[in-house]
């Protein structure tokens, strides 16, 4: 695959050419705050600040999304002229009817300037919404996902809160990435990995990269990988979380947690949601909206019984979901090491510390942080995960005979 080059001053023109056909979303700084926003000509794309406040997941997995609209009306009994009403009073009584319409908007869009951890987050959510392993297929997310092209930018200067390499990621990783832009002198080296990436980078201003630019890009990637700390050993965490399920350590770790939803909402791959109905007179809608497992009411049942009334149980659930429950179902972690949860938690709860403490075998003293960074990009050494969409064979359904005895 040939590496191309886009000079930095061509970036606005490149984005404008995309904007002619699709929505373009990019990290933009407004009043000092960097967020992913729809881009328009004249807006500067912010790439010096490593991470936008939130991940771009809200453009594919909308924060609130109406998926059903309905309206009640009274319809007269059928006047089809055939046969007669059983009695005069039956034909005179109008019946309630309800019209239901399903909504699913999936505008084409390109997200430019996200980081490899953000793209990896999408891949992890794809498993859930794409019916991996015989589960249901979610058409709302999937339609938007298929209409989205991800153009990621290599992290030249990872933060101290990054830990992607500890969990199989990389500052130049391309899991879920359609095309990867690596900043080199005066521009970007551009690699494409999918057909979508090819299509999005079919821009006149993209020429072949020179040998010097190629090797500079390789050097940038190597240096970046070396700057990511490895704060814990991934191996064994799943089993140790299982063994530590009743551990007292959860109480100590969550003392300063205020049980809000910040970590889940800024995370590139947390995906739990709620569904609500609203009705005004006779018309209404059903929508889904982000929810989070720290919400004290998350698991509260109508009877008033709440299996996770204790904050420490909710706290345990989130980390266990990411490193044990989800991997058991989807053969992948539910974390990409971006560190946003650490950066934005009002009390800086540190997922690395939680995993280090609760992910060690019961009865062992947790290891101190390993400051030595990974020597090479872990992601490069594993088989490339499938790019989306996959031409999938039909997944084996859950056993139709009910449980195996």
């Amino acid at each position, binding site marked *: 695959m040939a590496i191309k080059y886009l000079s930095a001053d061509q970036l606005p023109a490149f984005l404008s050419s995309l904007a002619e056909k699709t929505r373009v979303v990019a990290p933009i700084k407004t009043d000092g705050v960097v967020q992913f926003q729809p881009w328009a000509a004249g807006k500067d794309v912010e790439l010096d600040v490593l991470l936008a406040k939130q991940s771009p997941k809200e453009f594919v997995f909308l924060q609130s999304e109406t*998926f*059903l609209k*309905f309206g*009640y009306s009274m319809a007269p009994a059928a006047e089809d002229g055939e046969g007669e009403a059983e009695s005069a009073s039956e034909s005179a009584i109008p*019946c*309630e*009817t*309800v019209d*239901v319409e*399903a909504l699913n908007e999936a505008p084409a869009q390109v997200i430019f300037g996200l980081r490899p951890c953000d793209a990896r987050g999408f891949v992890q959510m794809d*498993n*859930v*919404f*794409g*019916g*991996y392993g*015989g*589960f*249901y*297929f*979610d*058409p*709302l997310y999937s*339609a938007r996902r*298929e209409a989205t092209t991800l153009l990621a930018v290599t992290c030249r200067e990872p933060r101290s809160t990054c830990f992607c390499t500890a969990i199989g990621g990389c500052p130049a990783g391309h899991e879920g990435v359609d095309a990867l832009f690596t900043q080199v002198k005066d521009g970007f080296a551009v690699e494409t990995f999918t057909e979508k990436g090819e299509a999005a980078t079919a821009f006149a201003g993209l020429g072949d990269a020179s040998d010097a630019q190629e090797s500079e890009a390789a050097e940038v990637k190597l240096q970046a990988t070396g700057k990511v700390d490895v704060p814990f050993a991934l191996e064994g965490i799943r089993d140790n979380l299982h063994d530590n399920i*009743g551990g007292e350590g959860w109480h100590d770790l969550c003392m300063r947690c205020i049980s809000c939803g910040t970590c889940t909402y800024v995370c590139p791959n947390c*995906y*739990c949601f*709620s*569904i*609500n*109905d609203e*009705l005004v007179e006779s018309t*209404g809608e*059903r929508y889904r909206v982000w*929810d989070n497992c720290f919400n004290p009411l*998350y*698991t*509260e*049942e*109508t009877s008033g019984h709440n*299996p996770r009334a204790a904050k420490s149980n909710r706290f*345990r*659930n989130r980390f*266990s*979901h990411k490193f*044990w429950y989800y991997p058991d179902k989807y053969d992948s972690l539910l974390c990409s090491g971006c560190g946003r949860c650490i950066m934005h938690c009002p009390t800086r709860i540190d997922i690395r510390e939680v995993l280090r403490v609760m992910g060690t075998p019961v009865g062992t003293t947790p290891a101190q942080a390993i400051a030595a960074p990974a020597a090479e990009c872990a992601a490069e050494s594993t088989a490339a995960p499938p790019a*989306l*969409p*996959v031409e*999938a064979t*039909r*997944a084996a*359904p859950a*056993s139709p*005979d*009910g*449980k*195996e*005895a």
Partner: protein
Amino acid sequence: MADNGKTRLTAADVVAGASTARAGKLGGNPYLPEIATAIEIIQETPNIKTLRLRFDDPAVQESFSFLPGQVGQLGIFGVGESTFAITSKPSEKEFIQFSVMKAGEVTKAIHNLSEGDKVGIRAPMGCGFPVEAWKGQRILYVMGGIGSAALKATIEYTLEHRSDYAGITILYGATAPENFTYQADIDDWQKRDDLELVLTIDRDCDGWQCDVGLVPHVLERMNPDPANTIAITCGPPIMIKFALMSFQKLGFTDEQTYTTLEKRMKCGIGICGRCNVGPKYVCVDGPVFSLAELKELPDEL
């Protein structure tokens, strides 16, 4: 591609009828309910109603089938959905039936329905009881209160296929005589000679002919033989807890003991992440769980 055969689906897959899109119309949207009309509403007890519903689309009604123990999302547009066990006989073709206790927002609205009103249904969902694998064994049903709804379809199935099973025993407890659901069916069950039926109420009262005592106590008095027997229980959480303890005392193994769980649910299709107990979703891995499976899970019931 993971080499364990698991894959992700695409929209094309689903249109082609991939079987995981089994709730709602095939090839479509598992969040889109089927519209059904309430054709009969039965007041079972002061706070439990049984609703018989018929899908408006005749093709859907015709092709609808479910496994005993499966559940469905019954919803009222504008109020919301809740999960209920399907309580019709699996062989019933004319309607789908749910039994609903009035408790909160959605169930209150369901109790306010009249015959002719419209609802939305997404069914069947979840895993049913492994009734095929249980052939040749004795089945012991131990239920209390609204727990009878969770086991009703399975009881009907095993009664319809009675000769496949070595024996059927039903222990059903309620707080008082008027709180038994399915009175009409109980009358039928009492007339059968191929089933052992024990009814019990918490405290004796005039005119009551059957047993008295809390379900776990009566169960221990009955002293059922665990050999070649499957023990299933459902009821209020406290009853389940003590019934499971009683089963252990009587010598039933974890693999022989089953229950069905309830959790706050939203999507019902294993996506929204809410109803998990550890790595298992009650809506797709359950609601049926053996005690052996439950012991692997965090204590978050």
